[in-house]
């Protein structure tokens, strides 16, 4: 893990990155996941792409909001228990400060036309960020010709987007599929061994 000084500077960099992302992230949990992918996978190279997707799955299926959960996971990866605390602080501070300020004049804020126009413009870009991340990660499955992954991806997309299935069910089904995929060859092998053993007996 390096010297104490290196560890501290890494924690500081973690704090700044998470604070920065949470100060400027509008919209739901997958927006922060997309931004974290760009920051920690592409830019800092602290986390691998597959790992980021695993962390996203855990963040989505645990209690609490995705922003907090993904910060805890990324913090743990980058700096262990200390990293977790640092990342959570950085996640909590922006809303704590911004909402405290706004709660005093929230009607003026809510009805401000300049802010409304700004948010409308930003919304289009948020869609672009999230879809660009999804595209680049989805393309990897296609480029590597992982047929099983492509089928799962298409089916999950249809279920979530068109049929509006709760994502928790999709996650549970994928877990079952994964267990089945590793269990079936094992069972097959075992039954073959059994048959072989029976034949040898007489």
């Amino acid at each position, binding site marked *: 893990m390096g010297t104490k000084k290196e560890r501290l500077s890494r924690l500081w960099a973690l704090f700044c990155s998470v604070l920065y992302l*949470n*100060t*400027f992230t*509008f919209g*739901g949990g997958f*927006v922060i996941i*997309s931004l974290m992918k*760009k920051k920690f996978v*592409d830019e800092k190279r602290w986390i691998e792409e597959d790992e980021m997707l*695993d962390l996203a799955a*855990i963040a989505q299926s*645990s*209690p*609490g*909001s*995705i*922003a*907090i*959960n993904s910060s805890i996971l990324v913090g*743990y990866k980058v700096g262990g*228990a200390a990293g*977790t605390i640092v990342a959570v602080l950085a*996640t*909590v501070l922006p*809303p*704590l400060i911004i*909402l405290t300020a*706004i*709660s005093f004049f929230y*009607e003026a804020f809510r009805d401000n036309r300049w802010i*409304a126009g700004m*948010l*409308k*413009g*930003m*919304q*289009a*870009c948020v*869609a*672009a*960020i999230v*879809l*660009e*991340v*999804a595209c680049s*990660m*989805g393309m990897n*499955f296609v480029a590597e010709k*992982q047929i099983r*992954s492509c089928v*799962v991806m298409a089916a*999950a*997309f249809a279920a*979530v*987007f068109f049929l509006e299935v709760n994502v*928790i069910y*999709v996650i549970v089904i*994928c877990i079952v599929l*994964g*267990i089945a995929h590793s269990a079936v060859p094992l069972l097959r092998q075992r039954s073959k061994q059994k048959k072989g053993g029976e034949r040898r007996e007489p």
Partner: protein
Amino acid sequence: MKLLWELFFSFFQIGLFSIGGGYAAIPLIQNQIVDIHGWLTLNEFSDLVTIAEMTPGAIALNASTFVGTRIAGFPGAILATAGCVAPALIIVSALAWMYYRFRSISVIKDVLQSLRPAVVAMIASAGLSILILSLWDGKGFSTNIGDLNVLSLLLFVGAFVVLRKWKTNPILTMLVCGVIGTLYYNLF
């Protein structure tokens, strides 16, 4: 003192039972804050949701600070936020530990491998939902070209191309789009 404890415990429950985050948490927050404790009226609560959508950060965290400040000042905000984060801190830290310890086991590997494409699909679905919200101003998808918000379309295409080709800083790109938006809607 009792009020602070109630705030903490109320948001602890919100943090513990809101799986899936974001919009899934809204009814739960409403139940605790409006129905059970009466800390906000329904009108104030709908203002809170609007503001939470307009400001950065998770909805549950925004709600913690907003309600905490109104009920018990800044200490209230801190206690409510702490309550909101505490369950995740315990549960997700344990899961993180388990993930890094057991991810090389073959069953877990297989499970994770089939989860990854599903997560990409969920990200894509979330992105498309935001895009539809943005292009049709929250009125839902329609084939009528007149309903399309042309500025949103231009910003989306521009941002997508710039992000993909030149890998521009996403937050900077977002702020530029915000400035173009506010100038366009207020000056023209």
